[in-house]
């Protein structure tokens, strides 16, 4: 699974710490998701997509 969380963050000009605080997770969690070390739960994926005003599919997608 891949994501464009880093791109969305750059577009919205917010840091990992700011996003983490807004979503209610640690900065390490955002870093781990961006680097594909951790696949978030459905709840966290929904929170992230709602924060950026995107659908979950626009933020996360399956890879081969």
């Amino acid at each position: 699974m891949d994501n464009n969380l880093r791109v969305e963050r750059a577009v919205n000009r917010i840091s990992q710490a700011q996003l983490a605080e807004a979503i209610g997770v640690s900065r390490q969690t955002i870093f781990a998701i961006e680097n594909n070390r951790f696949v978030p739960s459905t709840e966290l994926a929904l929170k992230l997509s709602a924060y950026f005003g995107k659908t979950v599919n626009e933020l996360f997608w399956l890879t081969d």
Partner: protein
Amino acid sequence: MNQKSFLLPYRCQQAGWWLLGLSLAGFVIFLEFMAGSLDTILQQMPEWMQEPLVWTFYGLPLVALLLICLSREKDEDEYITHLRGRAVFWVVVVGFIAALFSHLFVIVGGRLYPISTVSRFLGYAFYFKSPVVLSIVFLLIFKGTIVVNRITTRHHG
């Protein structure tokens, strides 16, 4: 995220670290000021003191380690829960391998080697299965990963 957590509050972890530090400091001070091994020192003590001292020296670090392992982190979220699960997996692997080897030592080793050799290896396997060793393995993997992640995030974040 709204899942029910069976972990103790973060305060218990802080209490666990204090308890571990105090019990280790007490252990070092006790051995430093009194010559000989712990068992010989205990034998020199009055009989009524021996049992509480044994519980203090062997029980306190174990209670402290369990408090640390079974408590929440300060910033517990689903990634921390994921790391905890991974550490628990490796503890199960280590415990299973230790149990497997101790079983093999009895079944196979008992036929091939003298009983003294088998007993020695069984002793090692026993220690690897002990809650203290398994707690330390858990903490090394779990806390180690958290620390490495914090450092990596700081450098690349």
